[in-house]
């Protein structure tokens, strides 16, 4: 889903870059407030975690496999602002060092996955969780992960179409279909991971005492 260089036209590049730049700036001040001087080591290692987690493959269908995106996972674990910062860092590193996604398309990629992905995820998660039916927690996690994948796919198709690279009608159906399926895997993995992390954190909070609440140890 990483858009390469050359697939977007000038106006799309400018608009998406400006939008993601603004979102990043805002996210940075928010994260700094949330974490204080702990922001660099915490978010830095967590970005490395998301980077590594994206290497994790899961089976999809008939022997094919997808890999984790981690937008919802990050949003649920760190909150939307820190998550968007973490995801953006990962995308920048992938663009610069792994040629995964283009430098002129970086703004668009950040917007699709790091900004929209994490915000859709946390909005869906918080809304569904509040409904309080049996299994609302797991449903919330699953839906937020699934929709974050779909959001990315939709925005990507939209930007490509706006740029005149490919016609909207031709790209939207296959993109949404493929990602709706991959999103199921993302949803299941996110559910299992979040549930397991919570289970362990409930028992062994001292290791994360300083991680969850700032200022405690200092």
């Amino acid at each position, binding site marked *: 889903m990483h858009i390469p260089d050359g697939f977007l036209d000038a106006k799309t590049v400018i608009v998406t870059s400006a939008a993601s730049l603004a979102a990043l700036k805002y996210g940075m001040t928010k994260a700094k407030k949330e974490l204080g001087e702990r922001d660099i*080591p915490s978010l*830095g290692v967590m970005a490395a975690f998301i980077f590594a987690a994206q290497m994790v493959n899961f089976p999809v269908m008939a022997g094919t496999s997808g890999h984790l995106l981690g937008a919802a996972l990050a949003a649920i674990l760190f909150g939307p602002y820190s998550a968007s910062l973490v995801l953006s860092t990962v995308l920048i590193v992938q663009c610069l060092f792994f040629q995964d996604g283009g430098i002129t398309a970086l703004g668009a990629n950040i917007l699709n996955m790091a900004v929209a992905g994490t915000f859709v995820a946390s909005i869906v998660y918080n809304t569904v969780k509040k409904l309080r039916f049996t299994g609302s927690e797991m449903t919330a996690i699953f839906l937020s992960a699934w929709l974050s994948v779909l959001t990315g796919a939709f925005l990507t198709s939209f930007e490509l179409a706006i740029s005149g690279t490919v016609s909207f009608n031709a790209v939207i159906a296959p993109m949404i279909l493929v990602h709706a399926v991959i999103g199921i895997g993302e949803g299941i993995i996110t559910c299992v991971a979040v549930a397991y992390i919570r289970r362990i954190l409930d028992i*062994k*909070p*001292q290791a994360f*005492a300083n991680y969850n*609440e700032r200022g*405690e*140890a*200092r």
Partner: protein
Amino acid sequence: MDYAVEIDDLAFRYKDGTVALKNITINIKKGSKTAILGHNGAGKSTLLLHLNGIYLPQRGSVKVLGVEANKENEKFLRKMVGLVFQDPDDQVFSPTVWDDVAFGPANLGLAKEEIELRVEEALKAVEIEEYADKMPFHLSYGQRKRVAIAGVLAMKPEILVLDEPHAFLDPKSKENLYNILEKENKEGKTVIVATHDVDFAHEWADEIIVMREGEVLSQGGTEVLCREEIIKEAGLEFPKVVRLIRKIRGLKVEKIPKTIEEAGELFNSLINNGCHRD
């Protein structure tokens, strides 16, 4: 007596209620080589984090070089007490070795020339000058350990504190570490090492503190490590030299040899003067 560290009735519990330290009262002499021994989870690491104010006392007090540990004296503590963490990967986080060693001095707000000088000195002290431009990831574990130590030395602390420095080191790196610690101590630094390597402690240290489940079981010279009740209670074992001496029937020595080599000398004289005993 001049003390580097004075701890009085220190207690600490984590937020979840786990008690990590209770009634810790110890004094560590200036210029000494002190080993803190204890099983995994005895509270050694938590204690060390109190020495430079990362954790502040919840009860009791910690004094470093006569200065009370509290929020105001934080900067002083960080400058005076250099803490080397167990895993060098936790400590060495910069793009290159040089930058990592310069991180501490830069935080002290020193001038650029002074920083450069200190980095050079520190790299020399642990003999990794040639790796200055390398990325930490390209170094071996032992080398990264040395970078971590250099990063602390560059801050010129009065007290050098190391947490389990031997874990994962191969014999050559261990010897190297031993030499670094000896040198720093000779230059007047107080060196404190938390470890469960009883052989190292017995050979190197002149002060021993034995901990068990958040409490201090015993403090004293290396003779502490010859006392069966303490060793047993702390879940440790006798140092090899002590085990050897204890095995010899009817042997009374004034001072138990510290190293295997000293033990060898002792036996040399015993065997050659063997007849006197008959």
